């Protein structure tokens, strides 16, 4: 139940020390005449989770699509696994995306395929034998605790179940980077907690680097202050550890925050720095 999903056909990417998994440098993008992101620069190191916060329409989802090469910036540089993707051919981007999992805001499941075919989509594309593919689909569905829904179609699933299938589809190939676009958006608090537990499980069991967009502060702080407990199969608060320098009490050191407002970064730092920020806009947002 709590085993990491094994990495599959695409061999894990080896990065030289200190090379960030995600690196944005001075990235700007405009839709028609409306600037959506301007001069965005940040890095995410291996194993880190970057939580992207901000009000609706501030460019959070666009930022994730830029990180996956689904959109191209007007200016600036985006390096994923040390490779510049802004000048990469679409064909090479498809190869790079084999190492990136993405969970979409509205799940974006293929509605004409059942859960098994949705989750196994990438494996089918890679011509993985049917037996092997089925085994791995079952493993991924067990990870999200949804193995009973393997034969169902997306229209037969609830919003939370669809989100979990979407997570299973993203993690089935054991990606080196996962992009979560509002995985709890539009869900009730109990289902949201289930989804956040899955994100936490993937972070703490598989140690996958991730970018998570959310506008729900409680989800963001749950990720920063809790850890997945493999014995109970749920999340538990991180105990106070005064002996560990650089980390605050009961805070996951690998979880960082990035706050956006009107297309610009207003904060980038640790959980402690965020909660102690004196910036009036941040104080107001967190209030």
């Amino acid at each position, binding site marked *: 139940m709590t085993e990491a999903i094994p990495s599959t056909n695409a061999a894990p990417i080896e990065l030289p020390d200190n090379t960030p998994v995600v690196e944005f440098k001075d990235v700007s993008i405009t839709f028609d005449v409306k600037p959506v992101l301007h001069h965005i620069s940040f890095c995410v190191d291996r194993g880190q989770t970057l939580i992207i916060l901000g009000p609706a329409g501030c460019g959070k989802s666009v930022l994730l699509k830029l990180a996956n090469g*689904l959109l191209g910036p007007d200016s600036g540089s985006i390096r994923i696994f040390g490779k510049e993707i802004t000048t990469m051919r679409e064909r090479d981007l498809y190869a790079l995306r084999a190492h990136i999992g993405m969970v*979409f805001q*509205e799940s*974006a499941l293929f509605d004409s395929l059942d859960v098994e075919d949705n989750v196994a989509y990438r494996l089918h*594309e890679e011509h993985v034998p049917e037996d092997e593919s089925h085994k791995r689909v079952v493993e991924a569905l067990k990870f999200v605790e949804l193995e009973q829904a393997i034969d169902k179609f997306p229209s037969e699933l609830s919003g939370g179940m669809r989100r979990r299938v979407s997570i299973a589809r993203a993690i089935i190939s054991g990606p080196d980077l996962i992009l979560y676009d509002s995985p709890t958006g539009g869900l009730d608090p109990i289902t949201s907690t289930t989804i956040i537990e899955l994100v936490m499980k993937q972070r703490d069991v598989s140690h996958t680097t991730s970018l998570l967009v959310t506008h729900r502060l409680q989800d963001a702080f749950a990720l920063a202050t809790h850890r997945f407990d493999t014995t109970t199969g749920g999340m538990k608060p991180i105990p106070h550890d005064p002996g560990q320098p650089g980390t605050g009490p009961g805070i996951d050191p690998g979880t960082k925050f990035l706050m956006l407002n009107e297309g610009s970064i207003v904060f980038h730092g640790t959980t402690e720095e965020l909660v102690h920020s004196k910036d009036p806009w941040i104080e107001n947002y967190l209030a």
Partner: protein
Amino acid sequence: MAFSSPEVFIKQRIAAVQDYSILAGSAIADIFTAPRYWADIFTQMDSIGVGSMPIIILTGFFTGCVLALQSVTALQEFGAVSKTGSLVALSMVKELGPVLTGLMVSGRNAAGMASEIGSMKVTEQLDAMRALGTDPIRKLVTPRVVATVFMLFFLTIIADAVGIAGGAMVSVFMLGLNGSSYLHTSYQGLVYGDVVQGLTKPIFSGYIIATVGCYFGMKTTGGTQGVGRATTQAVVVSSVFIIIVDFLVTRVMIGIFGS
């Protein structure tokens, strides 16, 4: 609906032509490189080809019937009733078979492609496909282009055949003409150039139907209302393109074969 300045309007139209050209070119280029989605090609062939058979048979048959009925009145004035078969066959094979088949398949399949791909676009399924490492043009557009071009060719042959048969039935059972004479003049009236002309047109029509349908599907914005708009645009644009290209191909064929 907001009005845009002439400059913006022209830029948008040029960008649309550019996007369409890239999509239409990529759909062909992807045929020659792996991966190829054979299962999708066969599924589309079944949907477009076999699925369109009833409407093509009905349209072709009754067009042939009405053609015989209308032409015999005019031919009677010149004492050329025996040429009914030739007139029906020439009209069906050179013009009405290819054009009506193209228009019927356009109404059925360009709309289907635009709505299916458009729904995928507005629900982020196309982005999900790209995020999962699949090129949507290769996976969705190329199979539809191959299947439509291939199947429209054979659908046109079927439409021509049932059209001539429909003309024969009207000529024999309603107008009292000699069946053998009808079929003989039909056969005699057709020459190699007529058949080539008639079977060149569906290749172009098939390409137009698939690329226009997929283009409007992939450019869909604005939710379910946008899907409806894309579907309408796909049918209107592909139908108009089919008729324009029909004229151009006819002119080129007359230049080549001389009639």
